[in-house]
């Protein structure tokens, strides 16, 4: 049967994939997806631990995280829309004139 270690390794794997997406994709929306993946990896951990520890705390945490992730997605997308209106593109590479 699936032990805690497998769940944690899936969570860690999912976290790393999300991180790589964030680092190497140019499109802002895909970066957002990467971030969502990372958040869900944390959810997997929470649920896995909650199951292993027996209490319900982990699951409650997971639900809170889902709500927060939704709010974050809303805010992030709103800003990306604004970015599109001004720079005409969603490519993160273009937003680079603030530097030095």
């Amino acid at each position, binding site marked *: 049967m699936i032990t805690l270690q497998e769940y944690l390794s899936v969570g860690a794997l999912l976290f790393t994939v999300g*991180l790589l997406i*964030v*680092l*190497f994709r140019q499109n802002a929306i895909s970066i957002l997806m990467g971030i969502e993946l990372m958040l869900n990896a944390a959810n997997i951990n929470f649920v896995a631990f909650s199951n292993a520890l027996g209490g319900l705390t982990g699951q409650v945490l997971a639900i809170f995280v889902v709500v927060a992730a939704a709010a974050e997605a809303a805010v992030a997308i709103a800003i990306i829309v604004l970015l599109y209106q001004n720079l005409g593109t969603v490519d*993160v*590479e273009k*937003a*680079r004139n*603030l530097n*030095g």
Partner: protein
Amino acid sequence: MAELYGPLGLSCLLHGIFFPYFIAFGVIILFLRRWEKAAMAVSILASSTVLASTLMLFARHQGLAAGHEGVLPAATYTLSWLSTDSAAFQFGYILDPLSVLMLIVVEVVSFLVQVYSIGYMHGDPGRARFYAYLSLFSGSMTGLVVSPNLLQTYIFWELVGLCSYLLIGFWWHKPEAAAAAKKAFVMTRFGDLGLFIGLLMLLHAKGNAAFTDFGTLGLPAGLATCISLLIFCGVIGKSSQFPLHVWLPDAMEGPTPVSALIHAATMVVAGVYLLSRSAPLFLASETAMLVVLSFGVVTAFVAATMACVQRDIKKVWAYSTVSQLGYMVLAFGAGSSQASMFHLFTHAFYKALLFLGAGSFIHHAGSNDLFEIARKGGRGMRITFWTTVIGALALAGLPPFSGFFSKDAILVAVKENCHPLWYISVMFVGFLTAYYSFRVVFILFRKQEAGPGVAHGHGGHDSPLVMTGPLMVLALATICVGAWEGGFGHYLSGAPHGALHWDVAIPATFLALLGIVLAGASFGSGGREEGVLDRLPVMEIPRRKYYLDDFYYWVTQKIVLGFSFLCAYVDRHFVDGAVNGVADTVRWMGSQWSKMQTGQVQQYLNVLILIFSILGFGVYLTVKF
């Protein structure tokens, strides 16, 4: 009369010789800068009060007033000036026969010079400043002469150096005068360095620099030699002995009264006075005496040769002064400080006479050149000419005049105490002295040629009485001072009256006459400007001043200024460079790190994760082990 020499009288006499000059200086500088007449009056008033109190003190010392036998104890007045735990310095006066003698010389000559400068400086815009500096000089010279310890001597030694700087550079608008003043001050300062180190060494060894205890110091021989030689460095600087004498001829840029007072009679002899003051130190070591003797003789000889080839009347007397100073120093080196002091005494008068005479000639002819003065009727100036002749006779050392007696005493001392070779060289210098002094006389004695702008009749009229008066007084002094030779030894140290040594006097006089004849032969008749001596090829060396001036110029330009250029270069490029370097590296590091801020979000995240993993791995390692 008794209360005159009571404690109150004595102290007011003592202060009487010291403070008037400084008060005069202060008054003139602060208030009388524009009223020259008033400045002159204040200065001469101060000079006369000091002269009066000196004469009174001299009378006291002779015991004439109270009929005391022998010499009164040295009156001293001291005030604790500077005290540290290892030594205490008194500031005050010490009046024993030696200092009273010097006082007379200083006060008489300075009074006469002040009177003389009324005429000489007539019409010069800076006269008030001139008199201020003169009274400052006389004051500090007096302070030097009466100082009880080596520190106070050093203090006034420097002040006197300052006054010579100010007075040589009095006509500051002449570039040569400014350069000569600087040269004089720096060169004497270089000599004072030795004196300062000697003073410090003495303080370090004994913690006491009072002259009265010099006898009882009991220093080990090596240390005594070292200290005396260092003090002798100061003397070389101030009394312009051989290597450091180049500043004195250049000091002739100053007004002639200044040359007469400072560079003939008073300041330059301060060194000789210091020698005889610290005689116990020098006598304690043989090598020191030998060194002093050799320097004296070399200076005398070198200066005499240079005097023979000079065209400028003041330069001749300047080199003659250097030569006579050499005489005094070699007399001290020969062991008899008494002879050197007597020579100092007589030399002050006739050299002041010669200088003031030269001043009168220049004042009349407007040029320093001997032949120019002769052409402009130098002979016609009756009093000036004949007083100069008297001076020249005394300088050459012919019998009735004071020069003869003092030079004779020196020759006796050298003959008895030193190697015959020294004696022969001193005699030869005597011959040279006679030659150059009468070379001047014979040139001046030439007939006045009819030249443009010269009043006809029996030649130029003489200088006003205010200038010729002092000449006459000095001539009188030159003649009769010699007679006191016998009593001088007794006055100084109570020794029995010295008899005249004929076995030394006759050859000396013969050599002097020989010199006069040679001078007469080469310059007596006709307009020749070259004497037989001048044509000798060897005379080229003295004409180039033994290449000393070039050597000093090379030292200052190449070594001193070269090294300062090196230091400035190091300072600007290495020390400053290091500081700017640090600043630039900080700025460079800042700009390199700011490149990390590229503006791209993902770049940030990459670097973030990179550093984060390094940090995490590092922490992981520390946790593991």
